[in-house]
């Protein structure tokens, strides 16, 4: 399907925030889902060849948003797109986060990993949860969208590695309360691994949103394998179909 760009704002050196209008997409999108986005507008151009996966960051009426960082050519092209440009993307894909009710929950986001947590926080608030957000980055330039999180979260704790905003620490180092019913996390792999080890044995449900190179995004190429424990076995799951959200306690980080 396609949609029109409502805005495409530069937030900091490497961060952009884009809003796209698409009632059709919005109708079916759940927190934690992602989609494959074509960064080239002309069908006959084959560089970049593959679509790029991005998480649903927020939904506002008929629009959804993407928080993204500049990585390579795909995101570079994205950052150059003008308001009103028509862009093409897949349906919402993957499983998404569990939405609990009347619980005490923590969200832990690192860098651009904060993206899927915004829409999640909205859904959790609508379900009457008490929400604490832990949000870490290298520097102040990595911390964004706080104005939105202020509307949905009860507590917000921020840390940066250089101390330019919030505490000068890794985000996992400033977590002192472990009294949550469920923890949701998205960010760099080492951070998520840390989050799991910090909460392990203390919180039963830890949902991690993983990030793997994807060619198809829909379960066909088998390029995005994640290893998870199932009983005594280690089994393969496709990040795009059985994920991107997995049970943090089951993920095998290194094989």
């Amino acid at each position, binding site marked *: 399907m396609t949609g029109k760009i409502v805005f495409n704002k530069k937030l900091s050196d490497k961060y952009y925030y884009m809003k796209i209008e698409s009632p059709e997409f919005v109708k079916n999108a759940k927190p934690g889902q992602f989609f494959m986005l074509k960064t080239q507008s002309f069908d006959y151009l*084959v560089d970049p*060849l*593959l679509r790029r996966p991005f998480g649903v960051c927020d939904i506002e009426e008929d629009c959804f948003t993407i928080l993204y960082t500049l990585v390579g050519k795909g995101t570079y092209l994205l950052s150059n797109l003008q308001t009103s440009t028509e862009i093409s993307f897949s349906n919402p894909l993957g499983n998404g986060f569990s939405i609990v009710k009347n619980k005490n929950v923590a969200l832990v986001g690192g860098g651009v990993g904060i993206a899927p947590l915004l829409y999640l926080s909205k859904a959790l608030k609508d379900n009457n949860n008490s929400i604490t957000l832990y949000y870490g980055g290298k520097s102040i330039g990595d911390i964004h969208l706080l104005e939105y999180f202020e509307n949905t979260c009860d507590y917000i704790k921020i840390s940066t590695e250089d101390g330019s905003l919030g505490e000068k620490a890794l985000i996992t180092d400033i977590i002192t309360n472990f009294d949550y019913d469920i923890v949701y996390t998205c960010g760099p792999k080492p951070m998520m691994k840390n989050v799991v080890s910090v909460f392990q044995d203390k919180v039963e449900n830890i949902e991690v949103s993983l990030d793997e190179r994807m060619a*198809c995004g*829909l379960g066909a190429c088998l*390029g995005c394998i994640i290893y998870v424990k199932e009983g005594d076995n280690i089994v*393969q799951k496709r990040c795009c179909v059985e994920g991107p959200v997995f049970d943090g306690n089951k993920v095998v980080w290194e094989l």
Partner: protein
Amino acid sequence: MAKNRLEVEICGIKFKNPIITASGTFGYGIEYSRFIDISKLGGISVKGLSLNEVSGNMMPRIIETPAGMLNAIGLQNIGVNRFIEEKLPILKKYDTRIIVNFWGKTIEEYVEVAKILDSVDIDMLEINISCPNIKEGGIAFGTDHKMTEKVVSSVKKNIKNKPLIVKLSPNVTDIKLFAKICEDSGADAISAINTLLGMSIDIETKKPHLSNITGGLSGPAIKPVAVRMVYETYKTVKIPIIGIGGIINYKDVIEFFIAGSTAVQIGTANFVDPEIPIKIINDLKTYLENKNIDKISSLTGSIKIN
């Protein structure tokens, strides 16, 4: 009723159109049914099956390259029996031809899988002697002409009901030689090409981008090599050729037909956008109508050489 300009026949089997999705890029077919109407496809070639379930290579398995991608999935599959039990019944509900791509680590395994498939409700077998990703078998069969002859003739001798397509490896000095051997060994059709052996290195970590070090290059980047090989094969053998390699639009399909294809397979393009095969079918129909070409099959091998 309006005539169907897109209908083609391969080894006596009618395909409502010549657009077949390529093995390994379309799962077991079912994955795509959420996104497109797979009954519109001419056919589906399913992910390469072996006798037993195979878990494939370690991650990472894919990386994008200029106008292409490398993959080293490692022929991960659920095995021929689970396919027949779990996937085939669902797939049979769709109105499209089913080609089963398969492979083995030994000639015996190739034969055994072929025998099992020969008696189930599918349309054609496609033997993959060209996957570059596994150490045993695979590449060794498809790039050694004695092995090619042995595996193709052994399989052929052991199947009675289904036509046998042999899928060629492009990683050879002379594709004509292999095409001829396949024809002589009883192949009913040839599909060409599989992926080119390639490699990509992450300059930050100095590690190969793929855990398997090398992988198979596919996508538009390889189209010129594929068209050349289809053309050379067409000049060499009489059996039909299914052209594969880098197709992303209907013009590419026409090009493969002119070079000598009777049908084509679409691979990497399914990842680029699952709607591409359907779009190609529609565009081809329009093209033939506009050009007043009655049957797409009249384009096969229609290349003009001065």
